[in-house]
């Protein structure tokens, strides 16, 4: 992809990925899922997850998994509201851009 992704869009993508899992999901899986949409490095998402936690868009809990505690991330109500806002904004934004591109072809 040639377009850069702003912090807000990355937040939105992470929220979308986490919201898909009702029981929450974990760091490695989030990275793998985000990679379906865009290339991110292994260290990109930690600051994003941390910020979303701090903004109370996500919450964490630890669950025993194979003899160790794995940290799970789960979307909060606030996170869901934020995600919906992002989705609406994205729809408006992307359709305007698409329209402009289509119009430019004339």
């Amino acid at each position, binding site marked *: 992809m040639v377009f850069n992704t702003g912090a807000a869009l990355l937040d939105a993508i992470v929220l979308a990925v986490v919201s898909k899992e009702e029981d929450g999901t974990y760091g490695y899986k989030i990275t793998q899922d985000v990679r379906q949409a865009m290339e991110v490095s292994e260290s990109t998402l930690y*600051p994003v997850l941390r910020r979303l936690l701090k903004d109370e868009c996500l919450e964490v809990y630890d669950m025993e998994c194979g003899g160790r505690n794995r940290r799970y991330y789960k979307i909060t109500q606030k996170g869901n509201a934020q995600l919906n806002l992002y989705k609406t904004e994205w729809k408006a934004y992307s359709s305007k851009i698409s329209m402009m591109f289509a119009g430019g072809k004339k």
Partner: protein
Amino acid sequence: MMNRIEFMKKLEMLLQDISESERKEAIQYYNDYFDDAGVENEGMIIEQLNSPEKVAQTIKAGLNEEGENGEFSENGFTDSRFEDKKEVINESKSDQRNQSYTKQNETKKDDTLKIILIVLGCLLAIPVGLPILCTAGGLLIGFVSAVIGILIAVLATTVGLILGGIGLIGVGIVKMVAAPPAGLVIVGGGLIMLAIGILFLLLSIWIMTKAIPYIFKGITDLFRKIFNKKGEKAV
């Protein structure tokens, strides 16, 4: 290449200057990450993470900016304030595009050149560095010997003065029976010697309890400084 344990150890060390809770969170995240990725992916992840320094930098950047600055691209996080350190997270895994391909090659070439320069520098430094080291070592030994010598001299003077003083006092008392004035003079001399001896005793106690520990502390501090500098270079 480092293994996971070395990587995490180094990362934890590099995060000493952030709060304990933030450090624990980050360490837990990357430990989980390695665990979930599985042993077979360990090498690949370490390679992509690039280095503990760069991971620590990303974590700290996240702590400081609260997401207002910077931009995430497919190549990772870019922040104009860290422009020069951009390759931080830039290495993307399966990106075959020419642009980033050449970029990676350049960085690697840079690294090789750096290593060659460092090795050359070390080789060139041996003829100069070795004599300097030897001289410094010699000076140090000389200095320590001088301090010990002074201490022995002071101790000997102390013992001599005190014993001499006591002896003179004894002789004076005996002399006083025969010739009181001469005896008094000798006793007086003995007392003066004893007094000076006590002063020297104080001096030697001071040297042993204050001066020598102070000097040794100075020397160890010096070594620590040199050692730390080396450590920083390695970072």
